[in-house]
Structure formats: structure tokens, C-alpha cells
């Protein structure tokens, strides 16, 4: 199948490697899945070595990513069946080429390859435990939730607690349950594109 011509288009070894990579990753990916409100700090730690760091001001170590296909898999992926693997491979190839080409002057203005950990349209939020000893959970929510009044309330509290200029991602000092409630309301109230399926 791999070397036979089919309608004038020859499938080469590359397609085999792509399929192998896709199948391997599909098996691995199915376990994680994609849950919008899933606390994924644990997953973040696991896939640390496969994340592309934004080269904006701290150059990424390129060696990790040249020889390992899995290195380009974005952590939170869409439903595996719906996204074509060739498209993902094409995107990762483009990203690789761009990393090779970019020089220091241009990197500040390059299109955002930033933060492969956060998908497009989403932003990371760190929600602290209510008690001092609680660990903070990392959530990934759609950016438009921030415009919702409930989130405005949470951000006001964050500002009183930490100020505007804290390092790292947005940090909200509230209980995780309260944050999840706010996110659910924002999801339902803002167009309801992704209403939880079991309602």
C-alpha cells in the first residue's frame, strides 16, 4: 500500500511515519482527552519536556524538538477524530521551520507561536485554595469569560490580594468550586456554545 501508486499520488515513507505517530499519540491522547475545566497541573508537569517554550525572550532549546515527533503535540487537543492529522503535522512543520529561521530581531514581532500549552482562544488561570496550605490549580478557560461580570468580581478580589503586576499567569485567590461555578455560568450565559452535554 505504501509504495503502490494510487491515482498518480505516491504514498511514501513519510506517510507511514505520520500514521505511526498519529496512532501512537492517539492512544496516549485518548486517556487525557480534552476537558475544558479539567485541572491540568498534573498533565502540565508530565508533558513539560514536550512543550515548545515561546522563544520570545528566552530561546527554546531546539534539540529536543527536532528529532521527536511527539514534541509538537499540543497538550490540550480537540477531539481526536475531528482534527485531521495531516493538518497538525503541517502546522508543526511550519512551526519547526519558523524556529529555524527566526533571528533575535524578529522574534519579538513574530506571529504568536507562544505557549503551546494554551490553545487558541484560551487563557490559563491559577486558582488558589481557600486555605493557606491549598495548592493552586491551573485551569484553562476561554478568554471571553473574562468579560463576564462574575469574572470581573473574581478579578477585583485578585487585584486586592496580589495587585496588577504579579508575575506569572492570572491568579485568583478563591476556592476552586467558586471558580468552577463562575465559569459554568459564563459558559451558559455567553452564547452557550459549549453547554455541558449532560444537561
Amino acid at each position, binding site marked *: 500500500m505504501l509504495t503502490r501508486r494510487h491515482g498518480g499520488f505516491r504514498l511514501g515513507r513519510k506517510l507511514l511515519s505520520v500514521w505511526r505517530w498519529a496512532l501512537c499519540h492517539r492512544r496516549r491522547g485518548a486517556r487525557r482527552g480534552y476537558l475544558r475545566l479539567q485541572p491540568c497541573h498534573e498533565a502540565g508537569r508530565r508533558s513539560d519536556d514536550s512543550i515548545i517554550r515561546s522563544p520570545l525572550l528566552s530561546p527554546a532549546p531546539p534539540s529536543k524538538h527536532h528529532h521527536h515527533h511527539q514534541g509538537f503535540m499540543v497538550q490540550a487537543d480537540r477531539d481526536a477524530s475531528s482534527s485531521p492529522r495531516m493538518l497538525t503535522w503541517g502546522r508543526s512543520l511550519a512551526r519547526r521551520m519558523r524556529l529555524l529561521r527566526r533571528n533575535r530581531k524578529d522574534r519579538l514581532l513574530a506571529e504568536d507561536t507562544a505557549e503551546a500549552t494554551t490553545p487558541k482562544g484560551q487563557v490559563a488561570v491559577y486558582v488558589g485554595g481557600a486555605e493557606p496550605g491549598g495548592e493552586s490549580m491551573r485551569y484553562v478557560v476561554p478568554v*471571553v469569560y473574562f468579560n463576564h461580570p462574575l469574572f470581573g468580581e473574581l*478579578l477585583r478580589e485578585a487585584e486586592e490580594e496580589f495587585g496588577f503586576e504579579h508575575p506569572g*499567569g492570572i491568579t485568583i485567590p478563591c476556592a476552586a468550586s467558586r471558580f468552577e461555578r463562575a465559569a459554568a455560568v459564563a459558559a451558559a450565559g455567553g452564547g452557550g456554545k459549549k453547554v455541558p452535554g449532560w444537561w
Partner: protein
Amino acid sequence: MLGPLLRLLSGCGGVWPTSPAPGAASSSSSSGEDSEGRDGLLWWRDLARCHAGDVSVAVAQANQVLEDQCCLESAPPLGTVIGVFDGHGGPEAARFACDNLFPNLRGNPNPNATHLRCPPPKTDRRMFDLLAEVSSGPQGVTANAIREAFLATEEGFLALVSRLWEARPDIATAGTCCLVGVVHNRTLFVANLGDSRAVLGKKVGRTGQIAAEQLCSEHNANQEAVRQELVAQHPDDPQIVALKHGVWRVRGLIQVSRSIGDVYLKHAKYNTERIKPKFRLSEPFTKPILSADPSIISRTLQPNDSFIIFASDGLWEHLSNQDAVEIVHSHQRAGSARRLIKAALQEAARKREMRYSDLTKIDKKVRRHFHDDITVIVLFINYDLLAKGAARGQPLSIRCALDY
């Protein structure tokens, strides 16, 4: 082969054409692409001609009401005057300083002026009357004259506060930083009050590289020298600087140590229960905690002085001096200010673990959690023009058109 494909894949934006670095190649003035635009919370004026050369302006809003103001005027006899005002606690102080610092030197509104919004005429125009008197005098522009103009503005704002104190006590907690640049013949004056910053881009010999030189010191309590100065001025006050939310602040309230406005920290009679509780001081003070005395430098422009970036601290929070001058140096002149803002916003988005394209979906006020109001003015110096002393083109006047 992959070049066009990559451009297709990288998709959105593409506002800035990837033109080769002008650098040494273009010694003549820019292509004259004077486009003005507005996109949501971003306003820009890509390029305009002024007496000193070319200028590029851009403003990005983050607060509910824009607290940054900027102003540019280019007309004889003063030459080119640039002002960046970073307000806090409300927009009133920045607007007042912006209106009262810049004279219309000829006394008539310029029919060719590129006013985008005409500010309502103010009766209190002491600052620019003073500058106008000074500039027509025998000495021209001097550092003392600029200092007096600042003090006059401070007095004017104090008078305004005393007028409005009964009706609007919150005006006592409004203040603004001021960064003023004057290019008069071949002399550059930079006066700074607060934590805005002016950075000069200087060509390095014939290497084609660019070096950054900060022109004025900042008055921010996070600097050791400023803290020591404050402690020396207020030996009886152990709480004069305090760490809050990880940054040093004067009395735990405000980062800048000098400003226009902020009368609640300058006159004890305005620090009463009528202002918001978070601004109240537990103990009354006898001498003003903040001052309105600017740091002024003057220098003669040299042929290798290429451009000056005047920007509020919203930019410098995310970009270093060297990064900023390299960005300006390695792209075409038109749109430089907008380019700097884009770079700062990309860095801000990266810090918050999100994409730059998603930052634009966030409303103002919430945006403040990601970045501050940013104002950038890039002045490209045309040394030959200044050396000849030729008046160039028509007078120019620019005001930011966001949310006035």
C-alpha cells in the same frame, strides 16, 4: 519554497510588511505614510512630519477610562514639543497637564493642525503662556523655564482641586507623571517627573547597530537611589517607603515619588475622610510627601542620534531599552510606535500564558490585569534639517483620539 506557505499558515494580522531593515540604507526621510487608525483599544498615527524630523504615535488603552494622555506640537519658535502623561487615580490630572502644558504659540488655532479632537478651551493656560513668554525672550528655551512651567501646571491643578474639592473629593487622589521633550534647534531638553522614560537610539559607528541610552532618571520607589532620597528627605517617617504586593511604594500607596497632582500626599488638608479609605494616611504629615520638581537634562544632538522613544511605563514594563531600540531600528519608520506596542502586548500575553490575538478580545478594565495603558511616541531626528535651522513644512499638533 516554504516561505509563501509559511506566510499563509501564519495567517492573521500581517499589518506590518516584512520590509528589509532601513538601517543605513535610507538616509532620506520616510515614505511619508501618514495613516491614522483605530482598532478597538488601540489608536495610532503611523508617521507625521514635524520640525525635528518624523514622528510616530500610538496609544493602547487598558483602564476603564484612559488615564494616559499624549500631546505633540511642532511650530516655531519652540520647535518640536512632545509630552507623555501617565495618569493614575483618574484621568483628570493627565488631561489637565496635557491641556495646560502645550501652548498654541501663535495664539491662533492652526487651520492645518491635525487635531483629531479639539479639547475644550481652558481658561487656565498658565503653563503655555509661560513657555510662550520664555521662548520669545532672548535666551530661548532653558531648563529653568521648563521647570517653572511644570510648577505653574502644578499650581494650576492645585487651584482646580481646591475649586472642585467640595463637589468631587476624589480629584484629590488623581495625579499624573509627565515626560516632556523639547527639540529646539539642535538642543534637546528632556524633563521627567515620574516613571515614564525617554530612550535615545544611537547608531554605533559604522557597524549598523543601535545602542540605547536612557535620557532621564525615573522617580520610582523601586529604585534604590530614589528610596534613599526619600528616606533622607523624611528622616522622621519610618514608613515613608513600604513593600506592598511585591513592589516598593511611597507610604505603601504609590510607586512614583514625584508627580503632578496627588494633592492628598502634598497637602494634609486633602487627606481627610472624604477621600477613599485606601488613600488615607494614619498620621498627618507636615511637609509634602511627593514633589513636583522635574529632572531635566539637556544635550546637543549629534549626527548619530537616530531617534528617541518617549513612552509611559506600560511599555517599559514589558520591553527593555535595548529591545525597544532594536525593534525601531530594524523596521521602517512608519508604524514604529504601533510596532512597539504590539511587541509589548505580545510579551504581556506571553507572561499571562495566552496568545496575543486573544488579548484583543478582552475588554478594557479587565485588560488592566494584563497590561497598563501604553503611550508611545517615537521621534526620528533629521539632523541635517536641524543643523540648517530650516523651518520644515506646516505646524503640527497631535492629540490622542481615544476616549477623550
